[in-house]
């Protein structure tokens, strides 16, 4: 229960956008996700394919005795697939599914750093019109040290409920 509460709290705290973000690279862009969402970062390991799942769900891995699903964020965002290398990482995030806390791994090109983003550095998301990673997925754009970081709403990106629905 405390676990659930903790994750729920982190979900709410994202409404306040300023804070610490873990940044990672995907193609040429830098993305950031709220640090409280991140459980851990692991290197890419062998993934077991699960049939009848959306194409961006790469399968499941063993996270210390727990079986968790792994998504390829590139595929999820409609980017071209890339061969995994030693810089490829799985960011394990905590989400709140309908049946309680859920851990999901996200494959990214590489993990960069943790940055502190102030409220004044964040701009609202520009509207791109209809593409996959637009609108609800993006919390805002942060300008830190001259670079632009796209702040993602992990719950929306992974869309746990939508995913649950699509599998039935």
């Amino acid at each position, binding site marked *: 229960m405390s676990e659930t509460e903790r994750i729920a709290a982190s979900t709410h705290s994202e409404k306040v956008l300023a804070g610490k973000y873990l940044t990672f690279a995907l193609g040429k862009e830098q993305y950031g996700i709220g640090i409280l969402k991140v459980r851990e970062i692991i290197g890419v390991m062998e993934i077991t*394919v699960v049939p009848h799942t959306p194409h961006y769900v790469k399968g499941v891995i063993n996270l210390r005795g727990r079986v968790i699903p792994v998504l390829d964020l590139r595929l999820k965002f409609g980017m071209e697939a890339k061969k995994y290398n030693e810089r490829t990482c799985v960011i394990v995030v905590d989400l709140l599914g309908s049946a309680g806390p*859920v851990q999901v791994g996200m494959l990214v090109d590489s993990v960069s750093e943790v940055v502190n983003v102030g409220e004044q550095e964040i701009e609202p998301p520009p509207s791109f019109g209809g593409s996959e990673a637009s609108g609800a997925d993006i919390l805002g754009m942060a300008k830190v040290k001259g670079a632009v970081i796209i702040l993602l709403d992990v719950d929306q990106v992974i869309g746990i409920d939508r995913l649950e629905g699509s599998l039935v």
Partner: protein
Amino acid sequence: MAKADLALPDFLDNMALKILMVEPGDLSVVGELLELVEQMLTSPVIKAFPGLVKTGRLFVIVLQKMIMGELPDDNENYERLGQCISLMQDVVRTEGRGDEKIFEQAVGVFAQTGLVIDPEFLDADQSDEGGDSQKPASASLQTDESESGGEVAAGSPGALQFEGLPDFLKDRDLLGGFIDEAFEHLEGIEVNILELEQNPDDLEIINNIFRPFHTIKGVSGFLNLKVINKLAHTTENLLDDVRNNRRKMDSDVIDIVLSVGDQLRVMVQNIRDILEKGMDHYIEFDISEYVEQIRNIQEGKKTAGSLRRRAAGPSTVAELKAQPTPFDTPGETEPDKNTGALRPTGREDAPASTKSAVGASIKVDIEKLDGLVNAVGELVIMQAMVRQNPMIIGLYDPKLNRDFAQLSRITTELQRTAMSMRMVPIRQTFQKMIRLVRDLSKKSGKVVDLIMTGEETEIDRNMVDSIYDPLVHMIRNSIDHGVQVPAEREKIGKPAVGVVNLRAYQKGGHIMIEIEDDGQGLNSEKIRKKAIERGLIQEGDALSDHELNNLIFIPGFSTADKITDVSGRGVGMDVVKKGVEKLRGKVEVLSQSGKGSQFIIRLPLTLAIIDGIIVRVGSERYIIPTIAIKESMRPKREFYNTVHGRGEALLIRETLIPIIRLYELFGVESTYTDPCEAIVVVVESEGRQRALMVDELLGKQEVVIKSLGGYMKEIPGVAGGTILGDGRVGLILDLAGIIGSSNTVRVEEERVVRNA
């Protein structure tokens, strides 16, 4: 568990299940219902349905009145509640259609009870949570005993004062301990009582009932829970008489002890509610009737009037006020002998004799247990990986080998123990059914024998609670609608005593629970008619009786024909099905008109260990439950047949078995595409045989089924995952699903075979 996460339909389903189970007089269920509605009302989703919110609040009021005894808790009222739930279910099912009308309909349902609701107060903002317990005050009740009218409502618990409860909050830990303990004792009492009914003269059992009452009395006195203390004390006195042979143990005593047990449970639950949710949940209990009845029994008078009906007579107000609250300040402590007596007062020998037989046990948080199981699993895998490290393999050291062997013995033992901790025998759940059957048969005037087998079958701890409600519903169904009354049974040449069989056993990687009665069975014709009425099937549809019978599980099927026939209280068997399906199980009914029906629940061993054969398909490995495997072979060319170019089959010992190419089904690259080069594993599920085509058999292993995580459930053909020896995840196949998804070609194949 995480009840706050429940969706609206889940709340309603749970409520529906509760209402099915509730027995007049069993206020603990009413309390649970109340909790559910209140939780539902706080869920954000419900805000979209204003009518539903109002109906929910109405529901709360009715429940509170029933708890207070202002409305009788009889079958009619439960039926009304059931109708109300099914109205709400309809609204949710149709995503809000009829929401604007539902409240009026619900008011109509309760109109006969004399309940008059002032609609305005229901519109009041819900943020006024603190006033919840005051609500009944604003709705006035116009019952036949009009003199009690608004007065009773005004005396409802909201008016009570709690300034003087210093001990209560200070003793939170102690109180929490008491609650758990009390529940255990009450459970023990019930089991023992029912046993006593079989052997009324067994002094040991009487002692086993006496002791927990004694303990409850002692501790509640110590904690200043006066009402509980008084009730336990009075009951204890009665039992003491029995123990000392001053009176006989007869059905009067058994009945009163059982209902006192129920009442105590409600009261203890209420204390828990108060602890968890605050004072608002305080309920005043009136135990005078129990006390009086016990006195009557002690004095040898025949019991006057049933306890189960509480009269909301005019005297109630006065009594309510006069009653000491459970949290009264110390001072005039009435039960003299036991103030501050936590230990038995030398009246009874230490209960060691019974304890030793049961074995000591401790309670462990489920999360910790899961953590332990996971850690042990990892330990086993790491050990294997260390052992297979080439450097280690290179060291031919006999001592190292011996140590490794020893280490693996220890880890295996550890794993086995950790696993078994999560499994519990189904016995406890079954034992609760004894009481149910007893009560039901008594009330309906039927004589029913409950025969239980396989109580030692172990099921996953997490399933125990979830399986209870569906089980109760089906037993109810069997007794209410299945078994006939003795006279009727004799007329058709059946023994007067009906038999309900409750069985549990393990089969094919599943746990089976069967409820079989020898009653009248389902009337397929009637079901067909109703199904046509409801538009579920067409007039000309050719359905077998079996298919027809299983229509009773369709949502909305029995709601049509309320309170009669197949349904009980306006909510149908679909809640059972849902309950079972939540456990990823299945339920079906077999019935022969006139001979009886049999409900079969099939549950997976979700978290249990299964024996599996690991197979390889391309680079993937899958686990096939060993129990489903008939044989495996490399097929010979002459036994291979294709059928119409659509399906393919193998002729194995005169039987044509369809082939399923696993790599095709799962979309993976395989090494072989020719069945005669690959290996086929012949499996059987639900009486159907299939040959699964795989590349290689890798070995046999006991594996732990793990769920693929919250949102990867319901993948056709996959029952779960497991961690294999090298740390990777392997998928466990769900054969029923696999066969089901490749089922379309089956009928045709078999037809061809017959022609050939």
